[in-house]
């Protein structure tokens, strides 16, 4: 019989010594029961499980027990190691909340190998479309699937395609929008880098459906690896006859080229992206006319986000109905989120629509770092909003997030804990929008700038109550009067933080305090005389000579000289320096 191995891990990071205790317990028990030949125990770095207490995984059977108590050790050795039986009460039912569809190949196949992609079932959907389906049938499948654009707004993909398909024009274009600009979202980059052929396949299918023979990949120049891999994929596809004339022996011909972005967030907006490809400033144009009517070089054009296109092959292959079986009533399929912020396990996750935010943060993300408590979750990036912790059980879909004042966006999800200041967060996003505003339309250009100024004023402790009204007034005007989606949503971070955390704003304004201790101007460091041992370490470390006193007399902080660097707070061994 193969030797069993017990992998041991304490999934609760606050417990430092417990895993060693268990290690000793298991080792002793194995030795006492003379099972050393049959099994061994090892401690490992991670198991991909979180907040499940002490956990063991027993191979080769792949049995996982979680939440173990000391008394369980004996039982496991007795029943599982010796008796080959599973202990039902402790068994961890592996029910992964993740569902990898778009990411199914990412991390599993070699993105630079067409063969790998083919072996993973690649281009079967294309073959089916080109050789067995009419364009209208593809649209029909899309309609059945309920797929909505993954770039932000969630516009039904079939409608976009169908519009363009119906346009009578000899020239039409397909554009893949790979100008992922949300700070903190990088799923598109991952897909382009990890599985470029799936996006290619999606684009060719899109081209066939709308009757286009030319497509462009618009990729951020900041993603050189993605550009390199996509270019390789295009070259491979050309060589294999998957691009070019008479693809797979059909009558359909299609070619693809890459165009680079050049560092402008607004180019994620469709009309700005088109202007950018045309070699102009990436400023948005009024819609209508919509790109599907008058797009690139005034020709009908569809623009789909990377993730949307990566969904196409599996959707076609499995059929629209199958795709629609996942998700909620109005939001179908899976969504990739870039989970970051104060979450333990940051990274990309793909989940079925309808999963709750709590499940994403805690079951997949492993909860909040340093076991702090969660304050809110920010979704949708600079155009999105915050969702306070009381709504964490909301199922994720386009409508629900919208109701809460946020958006799905491209899928950034950021966990915010009690040490994060919402005024500061709003300021961060506003700064982004101000930097990225194209400057064309007054409400966005000037409104954003004024909002940022007001937020800075508040976080510096100079805020007045009427500033809160001004924030609301400008936010509303920006929403209504800005030309494009960027401007219309740029005030969302302000809107939503005021909506849920107005008290925190008021604390900044009235009490001149930042509850999270983030806004520097509102933090005050103080030395508590009873705790101070007069060691002088703070005195020595202070970069601005703000600490006065001597080893005899003790020390005080001069609030005027203090630059609030926090060094005294960090170096004090006796916790005699306080921050408030």
């Amino acid at each position, binding site marked *: 019989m193969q030797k069993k191995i017990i992998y041991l891990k304490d999934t609760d990071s606050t417990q430092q010594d417990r895993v060693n205790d268990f290690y000793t317990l298991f080792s002793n028990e194995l030795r006492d029961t003379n099972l050393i030949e049959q099994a061994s125990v090892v401690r490992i770095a991670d*198991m991909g499980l979180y907040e499940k207490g002490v956990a063991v995984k027993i191979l080769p059977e792949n049995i996982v027990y979680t939440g173990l108590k000391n008394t369980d050790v004996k039982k496991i050795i007795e029943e599982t190691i010796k008796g080959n039986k599973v202990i039902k009460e402790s068994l961890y039912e592996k029910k992964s909340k993740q569902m990898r569809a778009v990411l199914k*190949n*990412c991390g*599993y196949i070699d993105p630079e190998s067409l063969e790998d992609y083919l*072996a*993973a079932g690649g281009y079967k959907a294309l*073959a089916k479309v080109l050789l067995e389906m009419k364009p209208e049938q593809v649209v029909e499948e899309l309609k059945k699937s309920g797929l909505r654009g993954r770039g932000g707004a969630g516009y039904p993909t079939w409608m976009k395609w169908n519009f363009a398909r119906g346009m009578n024009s000899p020239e039409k274009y397909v554009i893949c929008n790979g100008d992922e600009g949300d700070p903190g979202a990088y799923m598109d980059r*991952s897909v382009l880098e990890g599985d470029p052929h799936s996006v290619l396949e999606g684009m060719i299918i899109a081209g066939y459906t709308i009757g286009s023979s030319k497509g462009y990949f618009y990729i951020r120049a900041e993603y050189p690896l993605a550009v390199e891999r996509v270019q390789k994929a295009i070259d491979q596809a050309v060589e*294999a006859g998957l691009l070019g004339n008479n693809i797979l022996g059909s009558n359909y011909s299609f070619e693809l080229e890459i165009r680079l972005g050049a560092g402008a967030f607004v180019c994620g907006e469709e009309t700005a992206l088109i202007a950018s490809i045309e070699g102009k400033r990436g400023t948005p144009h009024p819609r209508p006319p919509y790109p599907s009517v008058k797009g690139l070089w005034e020709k009908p054009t569809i623009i789909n986000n990377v993730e949307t296109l990566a969904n196409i092959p599996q959707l076609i292959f499995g059929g629209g109905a199958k795709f629609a079986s996942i998700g909620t009533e109005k939001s179908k399929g899976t969504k990739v989120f870039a989970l970051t912020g104060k979450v333990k396990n940051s*990274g990309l996750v793909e989940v079925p629509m309808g999963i709750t935010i709590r499940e994403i943060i805690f079951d997949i993300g492993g909860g909040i770092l340093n076991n702090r408590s969660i304050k809110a979750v920010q979704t949708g990036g600079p155009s999105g909003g915050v969702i306070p912790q009381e709504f964490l059980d909301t199922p994720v879909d386009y409508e629900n997030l919208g109701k809460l004042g946020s958006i799905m966006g491209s899928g950034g999800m950021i966990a915010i804990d009690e040490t994060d200041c919402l005024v500061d967060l709003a300021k961060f996003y506003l700064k982004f929008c101000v930097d990225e505003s194209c400057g064309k339309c007054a409400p966005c250009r000037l409104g954003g700038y004024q909002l940022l100024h007001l937020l800075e004023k508040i976080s510096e402790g100079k805020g007045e109550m009427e500033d809160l009204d001004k924030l609301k007034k400008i936010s509303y005007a920006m929403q209504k009067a800005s030309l494009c989606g960027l401007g219309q949503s740029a005030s969302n971070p302000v809107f939503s933080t005021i909506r849920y955390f107005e008290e925190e704003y008021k604390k900044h304004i009235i009490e001149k305090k930042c509850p999270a201790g983030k806004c520097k101007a509102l933090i005050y460091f103080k030395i508590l005389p009873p705790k101070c041992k007069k060691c002088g370490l703070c005195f020595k470390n202070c970069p601005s000579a703000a600490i006065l006193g001597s080893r005899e007399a003790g020390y005080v902080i001069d609030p005027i000289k203090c630059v609030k660097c926090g060094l005294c707070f960090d170096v004090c061994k006796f916790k005699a320096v306080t921050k408030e």
Partner: protein
Amino acid sequence: MKKITKEDIEKIDPLKKDLGKSWIKVGMSTCGVAAGADEVYATLIEEAKKRNIEIDIRKCGCQGACSVEPLVEVNVEGLPKVLYGRVNKDVAITILERHVRNKKLLHDYIFEIN
């Protein structure tokens, strides 16, 4: 490469590439590369050759666990499939020696095991 036909696409056995073989995959997306995956990949190739260890070493995309990059997944016959995290050059060599050659796991770097 010759032009692919529909038959080619359908003929390819989806499983044939992975079955029964020993392999190492290195996550080589931007996050991985930023964390040093390219060095790990190069080390693995170079050292495997130097040490006459025959194993298929490949690149792959991002698995999503960005906080523990670089990630190296190792599948050796007879051993569980292991995902190692925070791999550096030295760990890469140890993986070759210990895991691949001597069929022992590097417990301190296991992030997922199946």
